[in-house]
């Protein structure tokens, strides 16, 4: 027979924060060195991007700060390099480290916004599709299927290209950044929608949902209280991996000349600029933003892979 627990020995229930800290999630995070390093790197990049206007050694957008005499200087650890310009300078005398920081800022801004946009659209459509069922569900899923038959990069490229052709030049220049966000977002909503729809369909049949409906809980509340929490994990995984993919897509579009406007260069734009002087031997102008891009996306992918393992029910 079970021993009786004296009432006085019951400890107060732990707070939500403590429960989180004790959870499996934090436990596996602490156990995984790759996850910790990846998260640290990502955090570093985000901080640098946020604080770029204040911590960059030089303002690369201010023509007055540039001197032609400083142009084409190799990185500091090579012969001819200067400590003042740790990563070297470009053809106009811009400090590469500062340029990188601002480029990082744009890259992260665009893909964060695009990911949020895709998430909002995708999750909403998924919820609607799953809970409404019938013809609406059919319509949305058919749309999704049709879009899925095209690779995302192509969809993003065509949307961006079309907007360029349709909008008058001045309007387009102002909106270019948001056009890119829109293009990338639209090309990636489908994954969220499908996952959320699947989860909604599963939850819809469960008893507690029937019970909630019987006591008169509105469908919206049911969705938010019951379906969403179950779907948060997989959506988080998709969002993380999409973030990385979004950065790559934006970089590709900018490299092709179709992405962000030249006034706010992202890492992709920088690589394109560097590519033009490749044969003159100034490899650092292209390689530095390239390395920055790869490290960033690698960190995100590692984090995303770890998240996927954490939320994978088969591995529990």
């Amino acid at each position: 027979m079970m021993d009786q627990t004296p009432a006085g020995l019951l400890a107060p229930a732990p707070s939500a924060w403590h429960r989180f800290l004790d959870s499996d999630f934090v436990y596996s995070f602490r156990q995984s060195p790759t996850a910790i390093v990846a998260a640290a790197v990502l955090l570093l990049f985000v901080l640098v991007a946020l604080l770029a206007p204040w911590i960059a050694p030089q303002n690369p957008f201010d023509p007055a700060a540039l001197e032609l005499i400083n142009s084409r200087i190799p990185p500091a650890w090579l012969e001819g390099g200067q400590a003042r310009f740790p990563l070297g300078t470009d053809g106009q005398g811009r400090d590469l480290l500062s340029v990188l920081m601002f480029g990082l800022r744009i890259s992260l801004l665009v893909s964060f916004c695009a990911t949020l946009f895709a998430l909002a659209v995708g999750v909403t459509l998924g919820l609607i599709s799953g809970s409404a069922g019938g013809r609406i569900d059919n319509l949305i899923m058919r749309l999704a299927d049709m879009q899925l038959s095209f690779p995302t990069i192509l969809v993003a490229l065509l949307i961006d290209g079309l907007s360029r052709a349709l909008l008058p030049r001045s309007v387009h220049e102002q909106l270019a950044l948001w056009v890119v966000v829109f293009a990338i977002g639209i090309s990636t909503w489908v994954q969220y929608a499908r996952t959320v729809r699947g989860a909604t369909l599963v939850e819809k049949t469960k008893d507690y949902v029937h019970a909630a409906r019987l006591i008169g809980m509105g469908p919206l509340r049911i969705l938010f209280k019951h379906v969403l929490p179950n779907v948060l994990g997989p959506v988080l995984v998709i969002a993380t991996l999409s973030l990385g993919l979004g950065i790559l897509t934006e970089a590709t579009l900018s490299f092709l000349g179709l992405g962000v406007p030249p006034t706010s260069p992202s890492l992709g734009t920088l690589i394109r600029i560097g590519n033009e002087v490749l044969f003159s031997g100034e490899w650092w102008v292209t390689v530095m933003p390239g390395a920055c891009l790869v490290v960033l996306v690698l960190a995100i992918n590692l984090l995303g892979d770890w998240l996927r393992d954490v939320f994978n029910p088969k591995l529990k």
Partner: protein
Amino acid sequence: MTSQALLRVQHLRVEIPTRRGVLLALDDVSFTIAPGEILGFVGESGAGKSLTGMAILGLLDPPGRVASGEIWLGERRIDTLSQREMRLIRGKQIGAVFQDPLMSLNPLLQIGDQLIESIRTHLPLTHEQAAARALALMRSVGIPAPEARFTAYPHQFSGGMRQRIVIALALCAQPELIVADEPTTALDVSIQAQVLHLLKSQCREQGTAMLLVTHDMGVIAETADRVAVMYAGRIVEIGPVADVIKAPVHPYTRGLMGAIPSLAPVTGPLAQIDGAMPRLNARPDGCAFHPRCPAATAQCRAQSPGLETRHGRQVACWVHQASQEAA
């Protein structure tokens, strides 16, 4: 300890190292199976019955491993064999039948092909000879019109037919021992009896011994010669089936027997054992059953009892031992 035993398991201990420590899945499991004998293993899910079978086959899912103990097949010790040597034993000397026939058969390969492959792995036959033998096997397990169904795929058969094919596959090289892990659990109730009967008759015909793992006491009563009751990774009672069912000794076995609904008029609520079997990471000290046992003593709480043999029955219980000694 007779030298005639086909399978001898001695003090088998299986551990599963996990992120949070090492789990003890099987603790000091010992038993023998004589040639041609059917030994049933009964217990709740998680008690360790399937693990015992897998350990014998050498197919424990990593990171699970045999930590200590010995497994002997005839004169040969098999728990220390390499995977390659073990592969030669599997199928030829020890066969297996698993629970879900739909999952056990490769959905992309024709039944005939799977049979021929199994046969030719162990017997030096040509393709045609193996095909003929496969057809004969299908007939002997009761599949009607086997020629027509030879090129069919698993999903085209019913559940009962599939399990018959699985049995045919397990027995095709005429092994000495079969490990049957819940062979009828996934089947319709109406088919279970047929498949069980087939399994038993095939074993009797070929003199094959069987380790029959199940949670269903009825299956044991129908099919087995002896039965071992498992609880929390240990065997708590072993004995001849009729004896154990009619006169269970261990408090857990008694609880199990009491919980079986009978066709006699209902006299009261169905007996139930309070509490639940402890999980692998939450084993109590001493006898694993003591928190639920109505007769638990201080010794039960402190020390884990070993199997004591008395009158052809083995029981692991301090209370029982004490009562026997007093008698």
